[in-house]
């Protein structure tokens, strides 16, 4: 048996050894996230010869690039706003609408699938539905004589892309807002109604302010999500719609802007926009968690 009189050998952890455990992870992040991103950020402020300049950033402020940012931002705002609204309504219907609890689990699973079903296949699904020969397009034309095309609708347009993006935006909103709606205690509603509040007053003074940080934060997340989406846009529109990810894609492939460092600047602009949106998300998330403890 062990000798009980001698003290057990004390394992001493050298601090640097403890940190060494993080080395593989740190190295991976450094090599494949931090350095590549830094390369872009620094490149945005460099000339071809490596000297410092603001020319590339200034170069972004040309009509075509500005308009691509503007369309990108518009699509992102529209798809996240509608995504938030529709996702919120669907989640509220599911959680608070008195519907059978059985629909909840399949809807949440489907949301998980749909929020991951982005990219090229999603574009095809919408082409097959709202494209010139799509299921809905044809159905409306043959059954009701409604010609979507003649009404100005085109899947390869601002609204077409927005409607397509909603396919992953709405489920993402449902996934994030459902726990928050669950966090609304039944007693809050009951307390409010005992105190004489109408349903609308309860929502205005209590429920929406509680949910507001989550909703706004999710909006920021959806915004970044849409802004960075490349594959769906390319597969859907080819290069016919002038949005930032498509332009950047073309620039990386073939330097269509005629200045490699202008590409850096465009990428830097993307990081700036999505980064800002995510900062908003994180700040608001922390605020909402403080209340919903």
């Amino acid at each position: 048996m062990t000798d009980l009189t001698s003290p057990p050998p004390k394992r001493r952890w050298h601090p640097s050894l403890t940190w060494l455990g993080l080395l593989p992870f740190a190295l991976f992040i450094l090599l494949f996230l931090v350095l590549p991103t830094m390369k872009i950020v620094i490149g945005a402020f460099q000339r071809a010869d490596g000297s410092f300049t603001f020319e590339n950033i200034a170069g972004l402020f040309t009509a075509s690039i500005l308009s691509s940012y503007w369309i990108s931002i518009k699509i992102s705002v529209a798809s996240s706003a509608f995504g938030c609204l529709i996702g919120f309504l669907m989640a509220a219907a599911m959680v608070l609408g008195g519907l059978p609890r059985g629909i909840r689990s399949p809807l949440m699973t489907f949301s998980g699938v749909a929020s991951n079903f982005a990219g090229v296949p999603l574009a095809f699904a919408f082409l097959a539905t709202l494209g010139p020969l799509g299921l809905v397009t044809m159905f409306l034309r043959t059954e009701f004589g409604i010609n979507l095309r003649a009404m100005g609708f085109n899947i390869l347009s601002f609204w077409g892309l927005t409607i397509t993006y909603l396919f992953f935006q709405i489920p993402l909103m449902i996934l994030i807002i459902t726990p928050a709606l669950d966090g609304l205690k039944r007693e809050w509603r009951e307390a409010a109604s005992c105190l004489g509040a109408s349903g609308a007053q309860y929502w205005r003074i209590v429920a929406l302010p509680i949910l507001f940080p989550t909703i706004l934060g999710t909006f920021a997340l959806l915004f970044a999500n849409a802004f960075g989406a490349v594959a769906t846009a390319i597969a859907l529109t080819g290069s016919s719609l002038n949005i930032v990810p498509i332009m950047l894609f073309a620039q990386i492939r073939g330097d269509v802007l005629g200045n490699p460092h202008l590409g850096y600047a465009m990428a830097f602009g993307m990081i700036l926009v999505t980064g800002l949106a995510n900062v908003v998300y994180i700040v608001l998330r922390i605020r909402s968690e403080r209340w919903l403890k």
Partner: protein
Amino acid sequence: MTRAASWAILLLGITYFVLPLLGMVEFSLSMRRGEYSFDAYAAVLADPQFRQTFSYSVVMALLTIVFGILLVVPTAFWVRLKLPRLRPVVEFVTLLPLVIPAIVTVFGYIRLYNTSSWLPLTGTIFGTNLLLMFGYAMLSLPYMYRAVDTGLRTIDVATLTEAAQSLGAGWVTIIVKLILPNVLVAVLSGSFVTFAIVMGEFTMAALLNRPAFGPYLQLMGANKAYEPFALATIAFIITWACMGLIQLVTRFTKHDKAGR
């Protein structure tokens, strides 16, 4: 909200989600004029390029999963055990790939690891494949890390480790025999998400010029009429299967635990 309004909202929403899937499937079955058939699927399956790109993506997905597990499990474990103060920082870092668009990261890869750089990964096919795998691992990092970290939260890492150490187990034994089995469900969930992400990924593979399933899909979309929809249906089924498997393993362990 009244029940009728709730049903109406839900049904409208479900319609929006079902129609594109319906359209996609309908189109994929319409290759033969006037009747539904699996011709498009047959054409796709007969295409050697499909087999090449599909198996390329499957292999890449499996490699990414193995690499992701080897990277994430020890790190998450170590952070919980020895550096709990760093946990928020590490968690934040793992979320960064959601902030920085993939197209930007891969742009950085191309410029940083080109043939004339200090680490010319893009100079060889093997190097490019490796780079792509790292990129995939980065894309799936937020999901993988979150899953594993949540799994670790349910077990008492410190106590288990001390108990194992007192019995003379080394670090490798602890991680392989003790931690991994306990977070197996979490690891599996993370792996299925990773699989789904890699199979559908387009941007990185396209810009690194690798023959993956995503770029193949896009290429077919530009050139063929019905095959793309069969491919999209296959892609959708893969995503569904991955999510279904996650549900399955989670439910399986819940019953397992309840039975104890």
